[in-house]
């Protein structure tokens, strides 16, 4: 009976047909935007390493990054002290790692310019001095060899990107080969392919050749600029507050939680604070992966806006239909009651 009424009603009114069509289009657009939003949020792997670290564990983990200004004075010793703080904080919430395992993983890095030499071939590259677990956070595709690892005995191993490997050796399979930096010999540990995502490529435009070596090698010319940490997050913002309160970020450093940065409320916040990010006051030069993530955030904020706009019409329509239905139902019940009374 009800179906008949609606059908009848819609068939009779042409305008409703158009409305339905529009609603369907809007819903389709909303679905597309939502899907694209979700897709974008998963694009940058280095923002989702907390899930990889968690593995099959039931514990909740969060990834937090600290960015320090170019003249930061944070040292490796400061980081060692911070690790102790993390251990203490984890103990406070009754979390302790099992023998031979760790509850958290961290990495730090600094940047400098270096001249690499292999025989007569020279390459001026952007060098990232990284700690042993850097490649856990930045899981670049290995063309050959291996990353720098915590098992390394020597600190003279260097990971090249494809571009540098090609420039210096003319090949990508160069793990174990030697090159020199300022006359000191280094051994190629591996060759990596750089992040192929659009935003990453855009962010890395200024650094066409990148090499990765042990932080201790360039510690004197590259202050620590980025510190990343994955640690248990038993309650929301636990990891974030541990880092914020205990890491020596100074007055101009920035801390952010990577794990939750692409969630809708955070992206919506970005839109509400639109343009605020353009004002740089803290002297931080963000690393390329963070710039990529920020670029992605900006794009996602537009997608979110489009999704929100496309949801307006369907939502209004649903509201109108529900009101009409309610009224009709009300009328129908009234009539029924009247009929029964008359029958009685």
């Amino acid at each position, binding site marked *: 009976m009800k179906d008949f009424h609606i059908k009848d009603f819609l068939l009779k009114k042409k305008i409703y047909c158009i409305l339905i069509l529009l609603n369907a289009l809007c819903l389709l657009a909303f679905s597309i935007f939502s899907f694209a939003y979700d897709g974008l949020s998963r694009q940058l*792997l280095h923002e*989702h390493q907390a899930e*990889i*670290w*968690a*593995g*099959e*564990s039931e*514990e909740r*983990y969060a990834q937090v990054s600290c960015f320090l200004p170019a003249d930061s004075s944070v040292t490796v010793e400061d980081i060692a002290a911070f690790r102790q703080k993390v251990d203490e904080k984890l103990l406070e919430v009754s979390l302790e790692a099992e023998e*031979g*395992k*760790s*509850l958290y*993983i961290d990495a730090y890095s600094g940047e400098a310019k270096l001249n690499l030499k292999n025989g007569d071939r020279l390459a001026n590259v952007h060098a990232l001095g990284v700690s042993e*677990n850097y490649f*856990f956070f930045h*899981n670049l*595709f*290995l063309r050959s*060899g*291996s*990353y720098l*690892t*915590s*098992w*390394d*005995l*020597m600190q*003279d*191993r260097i990971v090249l990107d494809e571009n540098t490997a090609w420039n210096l050796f003319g090949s990508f399979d160069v*793990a*174990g080969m*030697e090159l020199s930096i300022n*006359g*000191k*010999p280094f*051994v190629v*540990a*591996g060759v990596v392919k750089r992040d192929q995502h659009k935003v990453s490529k855009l962010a890395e435009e200024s650094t066409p050749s990148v090499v990765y070596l042990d932080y201790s090698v360039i510690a004197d010319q590259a202050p620590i600029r980025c510190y990343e940490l994955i640690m248990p997050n038993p309650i929301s913002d636990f990891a974030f507050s541990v880092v914020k309160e205990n890491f020596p970020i100074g007055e101009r450093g920035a801390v952010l939680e990577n794990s939750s940065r692409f969630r809708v409320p955070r992206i919506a916040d970005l839109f509400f604070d639109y343009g605020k990010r353009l004002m740089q006051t803290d002297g931080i030069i963000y690393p390329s992966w963070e710039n990529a993530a920020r670029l992605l955030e900006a794009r996602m904020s537009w997608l979110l806006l489009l999704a929100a706009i496309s949801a307006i019409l369907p939502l209004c329509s649903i509201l109108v239909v529900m009101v009409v239905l309610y009224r009709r139902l009300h009328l129908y019940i009234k009539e029924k009651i009247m009929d029964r009374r008359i029958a009685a």
Partner: protein
Amino acid sequence: MSEQDQVQKRAWVKNAAIVFLAVMLLLTLFSNTILNHSLPEVAVRYAESGSINAKIRGTGTVTANQSYEVSIPQTRRVESVAVQVGDPVQAGDLLFTLADSESSELEAAKAELDAMVLAYRLALIDTSSKDYAQDDHEIAQLQKKLQEAQTESAAHYVSDAELQQAKNKVTELEAEIRELTAELAELGEGSGGNLAELKEQRDQLQHEFDAAEIAYREEMAALREAAEAARDADLALGISSGGPVEVYMAALAITYAKAGMDEELDATGLLKTAVAAAYTEITQLEGSLAAVKDKIKNDTSDEYEDVSEELQDAQLELEEANTALELLNEKKEKWLLADESAESYQEQLNEKLFALAEQKKQDNKEQQKDSLNLADQQKKISEQQQKVNELQADSVSGTVVATAPGVVTAINVTAGNETMPGEAMAVIEAQDLGYSLSFPVTLEQAKKVKVGDQAEVSNYYWGPSITATLTSVKNDPENPGQGKVLNFRLDGEDISAGMQLTLAIGQKSANYDVIVPNSALRTDANGTFVLLVTAKSTPLGNRYYANRVDVNVLATDDINSAVSGGIASYDYVLTTSTKPIEPGQMVRLIEN
């Protein structure tokens, strides 16, 4: 609904069914390909048995175990260089010929010698003996003044006894005067016992007499008055020419007046008697007073005078004594004054003498020092002279020779240029003693090696081979407690100091059952693991799955790690992938 409408509806259903079937067919045919493209691509390697060869690499500069530098202490011009780098030399072989000229050092040494001689002479003048004439003169003056003051003091000397004597005399005389005065007073009083009494008596009588006289005179006056009244009444009666009453009255008045006159007359008579009596008494008293006075005068006058005279004498004597005492006191003051100035002069003299002595002592010390300095200067001058002589001698012999056998490894000067004093002109290495090389390592790295291990030279690809043997592992003085230094002995031909060599020294290779590439090892919150890639046959071909296997890392080198756990040789391990891999996930092998 018309029949045409129904036909149209059926056509639509038919078309939809055809499209659906076509899509299904396509999907079925290409499912494998589609699936494969949606899977992450992975690279795999076999797990193998093999050895792990952890190598420690280091770069250092080759140093000769013994080398010496040839240098001369003068700036000289090099005329010719007799050897070339690499030349073997014997002790005494000519290395350099120097131009025959005075070196700048010789000139400087001569100038310095002249300056030193001048300084010595100036010092000699400065140290001539000191003059104390002024001080001596001042002392003589002071001594003279002191003598004068002492003489004056002696002239005015008053002994205490003398002064005391004068004082005693004054005191004695004063006592005598006091006694005499008392005696005189006593004398006056003792003779006048009656005299005073008599004087008092007389005074009283005089008083009484005066009173009686006054009373008598008053009575006399009253009497005269009464007489005058009576006379007046008489006269009145006599001349009364009136009636009887008046006469009677006059007669009565005369009677009264006469009666009054009589009374007065009586009183006057009495007073006259009393006055007479008083007068008599006074006269008597006057007489007795005079008598007393006379008596006094007679009795005491002689003794009194004597005493008075004595007193006067004593007073005179006292005056004299006082004068003498004052003179003595004045003299003493003068003596004290002179004495004081004498003392002050003495003090000044002493001070002056002491200061002079001190000055002389000081001057003596300085003189000694000066003489030492002079001796030193003399010695230096002679040394400088010797140096000049040596330089002069050297400037003539213009050759530099090798002092020990070896090989010339560096020549730092060229003909025509000047040498720098003390700087190496050439370096000669004693080859027989060998070469060494060292570089710092971490404690962990140092644990991997032991003394006697052979190291490979990795950057010396040309020429004859060089062997490096680890000779010692020592603490790194630049990084105490955290680092070690590995010292190597180098053997081989064509080694020379200054070469940069990179050595690789390795742990003795150990064999392990399972070694995997380092890139296959993964770590997460649950520990270290590898992803084993296993194949499953399906009708549509092989499917590959990545499964997690927890492992323990036993050893590691630059390329591989030895592991233990649920993994065996010839298992496929995943080394890298295009996307993150979840354990159990299906993967696609890279097509090479």
